[in-house]
């Protein structure tokens, strides 16, 4: 009997901003309408409650509390000059914006949860579910464009220089490329001297991707391939 204890519970908060939103919501008005000192006092009071209930008060809460107290004290002191005045109002603005932004994110997050829930009431329908069919694969436009523009450039080069007959093999080029962690397609192709070499290099890169040794990590600003670590 004497072992029984009265248990208090507090809502759990993700972080200081979450707690702030909770406190603001209790006022049922916009954040900007609540005096800073009121928010600061309530925040600190809540932290005391958390300590009393032996809840862990993490450093992010402490930082927010000190920022709030600092702003509160600044608000109480007479301002020295207009520069300080300005700095303080900027700090206040930044604080309000952060709270408002966080509120927005909370709302988006709620929307997403709802969308996810709703998405389960709709299934994607498609006609070709048979294995014998295959989607026509297309290379991303940026890739083919890169290849085309380089080909055009070297066309000019080819007309001026005599290219010594030199044979390149895709396999050799693949082995050379495999040394590299990353391949920047445009830079790579630009450094080539002839059309044949460019074609071989392009094929070698595609072959490496097909074998799963490299993967296309980005198309912007230039196509970039990266080695797949096993």
């Amino acid at each position, binding site marked *: 009997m004497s072992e029984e204890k009265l248990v208090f519970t507090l809502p759990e908060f*993700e972080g*200081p*901003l979450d707690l702030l939103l909770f406190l603001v919501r209790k006022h049922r*008005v916009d954040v900007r309408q609540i005096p800073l000192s009121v928010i600061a006092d309530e925040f600190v009071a809540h932290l005391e409650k958390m300590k009393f209930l032996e809840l862990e008060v993490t450093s*992010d809460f402490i930082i927010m509390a000190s920022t709030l107290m600092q702003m509160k004290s600044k608000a109480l002191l007479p301002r020295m000059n207009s520069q300080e005045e300005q700095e303080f109002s900027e700090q206040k603005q930044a604080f309000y914006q952060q709270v408002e932004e966080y509120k927005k*994110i909370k709302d988006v997050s709620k929307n997403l949860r709802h*969308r*996810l829930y709703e*998405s389960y009431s709709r299934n994607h329908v498609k*006609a070709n579910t048979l294995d014998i069919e295959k989607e026509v694969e297309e290379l991303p436009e940026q890739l083919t464009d890169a290849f085309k523009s380089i080909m055009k450039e070297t066309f000019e080069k080819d007309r001026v220089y005599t290219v010594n007959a030199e044979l390149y093999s895709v396999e050799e080029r693949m082995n050379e490329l495999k040394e590299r962690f990353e391949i920047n397609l445009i830079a790579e192709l630009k450094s080539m001297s002839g059309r044949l070499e460019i074609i071989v290099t392009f094929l070698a890169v595609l072959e490496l991707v097909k074998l799963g040794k490299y993967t296309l990590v980005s198309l912007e600003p230039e196509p970039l391939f990266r080695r797949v670590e096993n």
Partner: protein
Amino acid sequence: MNDGNLNKKAAVEALILASRRGVTPKKIAKILGMRLNQVMVLVDELTEDYKSKDHGVQLMSVEGKLRFYTKKDLQSYVDRLTKRPLVKITDTQMEVLAIVAVRGPLTRVDVELMRGKSSQAQLAELLKMGLVRRTKSKLPGNPYLYKVTSKFYDVFQIDDVSEIAEKLFQKKESEKQSETSEVSSEQNETVQEESGQSD
């Protein structure tokens, strides 16, 4: 003339259904040799056609790709034939995902500034789930930039992020209007909560 249009509409329908992951209006225009706005007219017509009670599927656009989906009211039947595995996302993960979706591409530090809290674990988990991906940026120190993937759009069936964020701007405005008195802002809040649940 009318006949020609009907045939093109049938072709649009066929292309959408035959595509594995949906098809963009731009690609349809390219394949059929039509102008984009002509295709859009046909797409709108198809969308309307399928709203009829006689159809069990509806036309939707997800990440700009046109797809057919079964209708909501029939899900109890469809579920017995095919089911999609549940995606489990915690509230904190959802919060981080919301930031990346609306404000991305952005760095981990940006995310943490907005949340006032470390978000590394959530980002790592979202990466693993394939809902978020990252690329190296050219900013000092080459931090990773995070943004949502196509899978994110597929899973949430979202055409464009403005869908989930635009509602907020409307809300913001209604908040501003009611700021003048406390009572009306209270009413507004309850309305918001309802609308958040029903749509």
